């Protein structure tokens, strides 16, 4: 023998006695195991029941079991005086299964042929939330709010409470966790009313680096304090404020701390009360602001843009040099410069220098030379003059031989000519002449 497989849960079905609607045969023992999904119960509705009637359904019967416990035993017909007929009302199983056993004895009354029964069943959602509290002392199904669902249920909690991990009971909510939105509102449990005793709540406000948190406590602030000669002491109830890299401070009393600028992107608040005393608690709004970077200063012979009264996290600045100057950083020329205000309040890189450009040594002139007229070391706006080795060479044409170091680092004449001039030989003009004085 091997165990029969569990019947596949159905949402509805039909059960009929053998040969129905013909009279059922004698000596029967037939069993039906009905099952619907977990969380449902079975509603069984008889459309017809005609079983030989007898006292206590002694001879023929249809017995309904739930987990081996006989719940009902039916026989007879709708109007018979004997027997036990279910009538028109459906029957409801306690759980998601039912077993029907139909049996007949060896004798059937010859005058009347009984037809047996026909019944339909369907799965009916169990309203677990309506179930009475178990008597085992485990408490209600849900400690606060029970929400029935098809085939199951959910527990929920009132405002100010959180569902425990057992998904059944609720615990006082501190509204805790991590607050990472740029602004928000926090309050102690039950605020503005006093919460249950022995509260220990932690709140962490943590926003992106580059932002600082400012707390703004509302005026209605009440944390029990103990008076002492040194002033109010936060002995039993307190709100401890911890800012990164700073000593924690404890707040209590009836005076709101008002606005606290933390200069930090993370603030931890721990609210503590003991088993005695009363504190109505506190509430605050927090906001965040971008970290400020120092004013970048100025660059000689350059311009820092944009010019703002203050520079905040993620602000960019650019530096451009005046005409004739180039950007230099760490001894190297750079094509462009920008820097960003970082989350730590420092600029991503320091400002560059603007150094005057130079055009380099002017091209040498064959059979000529070059002389500086003004300026310094081939720098921007320096003026040079090309000359030819006179009297044996002369410049081509009457071109202006003065070249100026231009902003594009090219020596350029006033005629926008870049190429250096050309020295052409002077012909036919000896430096010494044949002088004939004799006549």
């Amino acid at each position, binding site marked *: 023998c091997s165990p029969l497989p569990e019947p596949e849960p159905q949402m509805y079905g039909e059960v009929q006695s053998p040969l129905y609607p013909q009279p059922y045969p004698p000596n029967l023992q037939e069993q039906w195991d009905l099952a619907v999904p977990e969380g449902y119960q079975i509603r069984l509705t008889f459309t017809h029941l005609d079983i030989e009637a007898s006292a206590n359904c002694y001879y023929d019967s249809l017995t309904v079991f739930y987990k081996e416990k006989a719940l009902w035993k039916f026989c007879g017909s709708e109007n018979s005086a004997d027997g036990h007929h279910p009538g028109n009302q459906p029957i409801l199983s306690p759980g998601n299964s039912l077993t029907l056993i139909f049996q007949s004895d060896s004798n059937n009354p010859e005058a009347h042929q009984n037809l047996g029964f026909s019944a339909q069943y369907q799965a009916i959602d169990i309203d677990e939330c309506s179930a009475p509290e178990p008597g085992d002392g485990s408490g209600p199904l849900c400690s606060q709010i029970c929400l029935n669902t098809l085939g199951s249920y959910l527990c929920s909690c009132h405002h100010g409470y959180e569902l425990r991990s057992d998904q059944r009971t609720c615990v006082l909510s501190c509204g805790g966790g991590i607050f990472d939105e740029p602004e928000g509102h926090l309050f102690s449990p039950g605020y503005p009313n006093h919460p249950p005793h022995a509260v220990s709540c932690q709140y962490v406000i943590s926003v992106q680096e580059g932002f600082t948190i400012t707390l703004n406590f509302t005026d209605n602030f009440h944390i029990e304090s103990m008076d002492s000669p040194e002033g109010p002491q936060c002995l039993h109830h307190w709100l401890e404020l911890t800012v990164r890299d700073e000593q924690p401070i404890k707040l209590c009393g009836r005076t709101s701390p008002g606005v606290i600028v933390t200069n930090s992107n993370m603030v931890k608040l721990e609210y503590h009360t003991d088993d005695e005393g009363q504190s109505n608690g506190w509430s605050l709004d927090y906001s965040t602001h971008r970290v400020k970077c120092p004013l970048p200063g100025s660059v000689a012979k350059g311009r820092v843009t944009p010019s703002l009264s203050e520079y905040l996290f993620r602000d960019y600045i650019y530096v451009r040099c005046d005409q004739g100057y180039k950007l230099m950083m760490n001894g190297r020329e750079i094509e462009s410069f920008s820097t960003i205000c970082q989350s730590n309040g420092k600029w991503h890189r320091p400002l560059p220098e603007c150094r005057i450009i130079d055009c380099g040594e002017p091209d040498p002139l064959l*059979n000529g030379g070059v002389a500086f007229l003004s300026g310094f070391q081939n720098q921007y706006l320096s003026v040079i003059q090309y000359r030819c080795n006179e009297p*044996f*060479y002369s410049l081509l044409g009457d071109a202006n031989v003065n070249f100026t170091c231009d902003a594009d680092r090219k020596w350029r004449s006033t005629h926008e000519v870049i190429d250096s001039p050309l020295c052409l*030989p*002077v*012909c*036919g*003009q*000896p*430096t*010494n*002449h*044949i002088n*004939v004085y004799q006549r």
Partner: protein
Amino acid sequence: IFGGQDAPDNTIPWQVLLSVSGKRAGGMVIGDRWVMTAAHNIVDKGAVVSNDTLQIFMGLNEVTALKKSPLFAASIHVHPEYNNPSYVDYNNDIALIKLEDTLTFNSSVMPVCLPEPGATYDTGVMGLVSGFGLTIENNRQILTNQLKYVYLPVVDQQTCRDSITSARRRSNNIPDLTTNMFCAGLPEGGKDSCQGDSGSPFTLTKDGRHWAAGIVSWGVDCGRKGTYGVYTRVANYLNWIQKTMQEN
């Protein structure tokens, strides 16, 4: 040069002395890599002499000193229409020598100007002829060691042609005077260019500049009365000169 004088230093800085297989000739500097001369100096028996037989000197007036620092030719360009196998046809007697090295000009080496397009050769205008060719002292022709010069007037073309015709009565095989030539000299003789001056410059002056009007080419005797020196008319070759220099 007959009837001339020693040229002071740096007065004719375009003057070139050529030594072609040991034979003395003249030339003139016309660019920082170019020397112009007479074609007949560098064509021997119808063939252009090889570069290595040609030595080029410039910058000094004294031959012995000058010859200490020769320059050499990179290429020789004879006028394509020069054809003088029998030494009686000096038409197109012009050639260009390209130097191996570029010259840097100074007071002793300077180019002579080329003629302007349409330059005129007016009769009687005095020109300057120079050279290291034969000179005459005490009725004896001698080889000079010193650059000499003489001023000579441009001679009327017909007058020159007549003198050549007259000379033909005394001597055969006298070359023809063509339009590519002009004459310079004195009817009474005594002043002239001579052998060894070939290729040297005959310059005229305009606006204080010397321009190469002629190249010493040929003549009947030297300094003789009634004869004139014949010079290649450079102005007729401007296009060829420029083309040759540009293409090379």
